[in-house]
């Protein structure tokens, strides 16, 4: 059985917990990215204080991505392209960007950090977005023959 997903998950959990223990922050990607964008369009003193660590975290994500995508060490884990068409990619991006903020988090914030903290709210949220994702694939792939 391929245990890499579990190992990867453990590393994600440890990385997120580092942010909690050392910095007292939640490793929710949508909040981190959204917060940076907020500081660009609606700068405020309060949000400004969060900007440097958020930029640093995102830089870490990108550099980590370089390691995954471009060094031989992790070649078997390199990112693959999505099969979605351009219009679908644009729609998907808009939905994910808007929806994660409206929904107060994403797979990292709710799915990992929230559930690990025994937050009922995050458990509901995760069930809703995973459930919706499953219904969406079922309908698009098996009713309309898309996403193949």
């Amino acid at each position, binding site marked *: 059985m391929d245990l890499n*997903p579990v190992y*990867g*998950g453990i*590393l*994600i*959990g440890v*990385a*997120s*917990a580092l*942010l*909690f*223990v*050392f*910095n007292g*922050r*939640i490793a929710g990607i949508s909040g981190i*990215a959204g917060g940076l964008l907020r500081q660009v*369009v*609606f700068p405020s003193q309060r949000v400004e204080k969060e900007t440097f*660590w958020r930029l*640093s975290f*995102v830089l*870490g*994500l*990108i550099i*980590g*991505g370089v390691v995954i995508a*471009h060094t031989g060490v992790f070649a078997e884990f390199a*990112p693959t*392209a*999505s*099969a979605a068409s*351009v219009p679908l*990619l644009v729609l*998907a*991006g808009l*939905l*994910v*960007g*808007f*929806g*994660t*903020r*409206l*929904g*107060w988090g*994403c797979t990292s914030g709710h799915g990992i950090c929230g*559930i690990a903290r025994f937050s009922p*709210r995050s458990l509901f*949220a995760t069930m809703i*977005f995973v*459930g*919706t*994702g499953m219904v*969406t*694939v*079922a309908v698009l*792939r*098996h009713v309309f023959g898309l*996403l193949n």
Partner: protein
Amino acid sequence: MTVSAPSDGAAHASDGQGAASLSAARLRAVRVVVSFVSGLLFAIGLGISGMVRPEKVIGFLDVTGNWDPALIGVMVGGILSYALIHALYTSKTRPLFEEDWRHIPRIGRDLPVNAVVGNVLFGAGWALAGYCPGPAIVSVSSGQQSVLIFVGAMLGGLLLYEFWERSRA
């Protein structure tokens, strides 16, 4: 002049000269470094987990078809490791390099309707392309057109939210 890591719940500068501002600045600098390391490890974890492969994500969501349950392992691994470390530290009066826990949200019991709508929108978008925010940002350096288009649109969605939220205030 030294700043000692907190062992008794407060950070001190040993000579007391300009102590408050220097130790606060040092704490901020450490937090920035920790954030980078956290992001780096997070990205590598995402890679090893398979979440930077949209076909694996959609395979996990394809319950009525060719179901690939692998990503359950990611959630289990992530939740268990986070929960363990969190449980050990959450009773401490403060994080190691921050004054208090004010940036950690209170545990919420309910989800307002708007947030439910948000989760639905996110779930749908996630299924369409197989990307959520973390894996998308991590994959940017691959230069793949699909990732770049998705990330661009995701930034658009994030922006849209900012303007929408502001208009309601």
